[in-house]
């Protein structure tokens, strides 16, 4: 009655229609007539777009030369970017002192690499370097002191200023965001209300109004004679703005930590701050890293708005270039260049955050 199979059936390769190029094409591009049409239309669109794009940016573009007259091609005139490259990167920072910025970049890159990558297991010292030593170092390096000549912040500009704005704001926004997030979850109604009020107020208004306030109205609020550098005011505005967003991100992380963690910590005798610092925050921050990186990306893009208060970040330097008498009519090149620079940074960060998310995810599954 029983039917028994004794011989093992061999493992066969799948039919050709399933694998290899043909299988892939069949499954991904031509699985039915509707898909086939979609594929063909898309291919056409891609072809058109790519040929226009490559034609404009590479084939018909001009790379060599130094003046407007060298732009003879029908495509982009990259000479424009090249000729003003120094300004685009450093603003009016004195040429003789630009090495200082480059040193800062290198140190920052090394620090970031050590902290973010997996090369070193114990992140304590790199982190101390990056978050404590480096900022102080940069202050003197960029601004002057210890024998380095002073460079006024009004001379800072270009990509350099963009990076300064972005990194300082995030550096301030993170701790402030943590405080606000804890405040918003506090049991004390007054503290909670103040934090909620601040967060919602800031999140409810456009950044440019905040910047506008910081840049021109702040002195009205201060006693006469008390005044800050324009850059500092922009930094304060951006930091407060991103702190509010950061607070919400971190609150999300805090909410994801089960209540039991706090209870366990308490039952072991840890106080509120010990439990927060040793147990809750490390976990909450870890799971919110991807979201924090996303906030950072948003912040980084928002630095372009300082153009509205007259700081010479990358976009405004390029923009003033496009209105330079010698380079009129090259707005497209300028904007494409700015777009490309921002894209590289932001896309890099978003990839990093995805990589991290996957890493944390598998780590969690262990």
């Amino acid at each position, binding site marked *: 009655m029983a039917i028994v199979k004794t011989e093992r*059936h061999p493992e066969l390769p799948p039919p050709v229609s399933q694998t290899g190029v043909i299988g892939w094409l069949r499954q991904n591009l031509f699985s039915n007539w509707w898909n086939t049409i979609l594929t063909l239309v898309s291919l056409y669109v891609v072809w058109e777009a790519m040929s226009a794009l490559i034609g404009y940016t590479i084939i018909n573009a001009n790379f060599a030369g130094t003046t407007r007259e060298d732009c003879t091609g029908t495509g982009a005139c990259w000479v424009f970017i090249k000729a003003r490259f120094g300004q685009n990167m450093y603003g009016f920072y004195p040429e003789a002192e630009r090495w200082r910025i480059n040193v800062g970049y290198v140190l920052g890159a090394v620090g970031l690499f050590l902290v973010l990558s997996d090369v070193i297991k114990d992140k304590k010292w790199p982190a101390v370097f990056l978050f404590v030593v480096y900022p102080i170092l940069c202050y003197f390096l960029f601004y002057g002191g210890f024998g380095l000549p002073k460079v006024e912040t009004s001379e800072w500009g270009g990509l350099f200023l963009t990076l300064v704005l972005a990194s300082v704001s995030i550096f301030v926004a993170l701790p402030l965001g943590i405080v606000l997030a804890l405040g918003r979850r506090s049991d004390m109604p007054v503290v909670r209300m103040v934090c909620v009020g601040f967060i919602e107020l800031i999140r409810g208004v456009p950044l440019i109004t905040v910047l506008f306030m910081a840049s021109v109205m702040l002195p009205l609020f201060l006693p006469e004679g008390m005044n800050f550098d324009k850059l500092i005011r922009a930094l304060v505005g951006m930091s407060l703005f991103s702190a509010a967003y950061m607070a919400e991100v971190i609150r999300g992380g805090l909410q994801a930590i089960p209540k039991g963690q706090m209870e366990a910590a308490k039952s072991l005798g840890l106080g509120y701050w010990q439990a927060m610092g040793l147990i809750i925050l490390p976990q909450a921050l870890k799971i919110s890293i991807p979201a924090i990186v996303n906030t950072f990306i948003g912040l980084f893009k928002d630095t372009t708005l300082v153009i509205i208060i007259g700081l010479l970040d990358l976009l405004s330097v390029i923009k003033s270039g496009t209105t330079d008498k010698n380079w009129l009519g090259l707005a497209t090149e300028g904007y494409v260049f700015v777009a490309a620079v921002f894209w590289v940074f932001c896309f890099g960060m978003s990839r990093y955050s995805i990589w991290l998310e996957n890493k944390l995810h598998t780590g969690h599954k262990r």
Partner: protein
Amino acid sequence: MNNAAKASNKQDDIAIQLIGMHKWYGEFHVLRDINLTVNRGERIVVCGPSGSGKSTMIRCINRLEEHQQGQIIVDGIELTNDVKKIDEIRREVGMVFQHFNLFPHLTVLENCTLAPIWVRKTPKKEAEATAMQFLERVKIPEQAHKYPGQLSGGQQQRVAIARSLCMNPRIMLFDEPTSALDPEMISEVLDTMISLAEDGMTMICVTHEMGFAKTVADRVIFMDGGEIIEQAPPQEFFENPQSERTQLFLSQILHNA
């Protein structure tokens, strides 16, 4: 295909037929040369170690997965890429999943009437009456207006069974219907299935509930490594397994139980 046509079918007593069926996931040969004939009214239990392809096989039967070689004939209709045939077969075949897969945004009653209304174009009143009938049959008419999230696992699984039955399928497939349930809930679901079986429904059931297999199965099928290794009536299967692998498998699960 109406019933008259079906009656004239010479294979009328065959509900499902798999002939030399193969399936690959990418490079991985997951089902190898499956041959199986299920007669109308037959109750079949499929068991085998994890990863042996049990779920894949029954999912091929209502085309939740595509097979690449061989034939699958359900109710006289061969499964091909033809959308119409797939629809026809899916209406004939009900399926119950391990994780119930109830629609959480609809009430129990709406879960049950959704397909009849939209697929069979049954008037709502009628569909609801039928649904209540089946909900009574699985003994939870009083839960009709709750949402799935408000029910226990066992109740949810019974709703899932009722939902399938509302489409009047001629064949039911079960994929480990009790393995996500707490022990005290398993029996209520098994009872429902047993009562179905007693009504003569054609059933293929992937399960490790050996008690159930012994009670209702006409045939037990043992799969391993993507192949059907052994088929036998339950008493023969449990008492006198032929293949080594079957013996090993049985010794494990009986030891655990």
